[in-house]
């Protein structure tokens, strides 16, 4: 079970998250920064609820009104050209 991938973009397993939590006695945010879970291409859209659940299970942190792992722009994959203000770039 520990080999099961939770964050597909960054290939972070359930074991990686558990071990990091135990080794560093880490908060949800710290686990995200150390393992990169939820920080990949999809911006956490696929694994966010799963990561939240694992963290809740391990750290006992219940969800509050703040979104647990802060959402950062861009929330969709975009090209550098788009970020630089150029559109219809082929």
């Amino acid at each position, binding site marked *: 079970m520990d080999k099961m*991938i939770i964050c597909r973009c960054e290939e972070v397993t359930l074991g990686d998250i558990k071990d990091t939590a135990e080794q560093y006695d880490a908060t949800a945010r710290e686990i995200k920064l150390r393992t990169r879970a939820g920080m990949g291409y999809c911006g956490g859209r696929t694994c966010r609820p799963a990561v939240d659940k694992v963290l809740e299970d391990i750290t006992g942190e219940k*969800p509050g009104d703040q979104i647990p792992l802060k959402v950062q722009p861009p929330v969709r994959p975009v090209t550098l050209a788009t970020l630089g203000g150029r*559109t219809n770039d082929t």
Partner: protein
Amino acid sequence: MHDVIIIGAGPAGLSAAIKCREWDLNVVVIDEFPQPGGRLLGQLHQEPNGEWWNGIKETDALLQQATDLNTDIRCGVSAHHIEKTNNGYIIHTNEGILESQKLLIATGAAESAAPVPGWTLPGVMSIGAAQVMTNVHRVRVGQKGIIVGVNVLSAAIARELQLAGIDLHSMMLPIKSSVTAEHAHPKKVMDGLVRIAHLAPSAFLRFGSTFAKMNWIRHLAVQFYPRGGVKMWGMPIHVRKAVKEIHGTEHVEAVTVCRVTPDGEEIQGTEERVDVDFVCIAGGLYPLTELAAVAGCPFQYVESLGGHVPVHNDRMETPLDGLYVAGNITGIESAKVARAQGEVAGLSIAKSVMDAVELIEHGIDNAIANVLETRKAASIQFHPDIHEGRAKVAEAFVEHTQTQ
């Protein structure tokens, strides 16, 4: 500078756009999917009264109204950031920057994964992906599949796959782990099923009523759940069996299933291999709030609404000036509720752009009443948690606006 930008061309976004256009506002609707309709496009089910709900027809009806009003709908446009300015919003998209005075975020919901080992193999998909492939793209997802996750959404979509001639082995739970939580707990799944059976098509209603509403009967039902499952539309539904692992080298080839206790623990020595070539995972829906979050909107965690929802009032206003929300981003409910909320949002926006018009105010009251009626009609057997959840968000809105 547009009067209003609407993000999301689903039932909420389209109905809001129609209301805004009826008051002649300058509206642009954007949606990242190549065609409008949102999740409405995939929906096809029989209502408890026997009538069919066909999402494509419902979309066409909304689009017809929007087109008659010359609504600017841009598909394939994806917003990745929102900035609030002193007099409106800047929306960053893959097609450049859009600016508007008012902004409606109607981005709907996303699916939660309920991962089981092997879930990253090709041929494993979310139940919603199977729905879109089947009903929107008309692509056969596989020859024979199994559904992991027993809930109202997976039951409804399983039926749609069956109607499309796709062979389903059964529907069962994911194996228990720290990620699958309540989806792997037979008693909780059964409680959930019975509570939401009224939202589902008629065969599901019969399934729900089989297990009555009394707690002790549900516990007995889980305790003595038939080993062959309970059949719905000829397909066995298991709450005492779970998918333990998905196998395959290049692609899904089989799953290992096992029996579980009423608390979801594996019963040793009950493993069994089932040959399938696709697996649908159904972990439920959560409000898709990323854009509201980057815009700076405050949130409230409400479990009965599906997780974190932007704080808003019954006029669909958020505490941020000029920012509105409608549809599943405000809580997981039916498309009909989303459509009714969209009308409220559209009228609220129209009123605020047009500077207090009496007629609109009257329309808003009616539209709000319509949301409540639609919600009530969907809850034939009354779902207490949805109403409490909505009340909690309304209170949060009052608190936020008072502290500002």
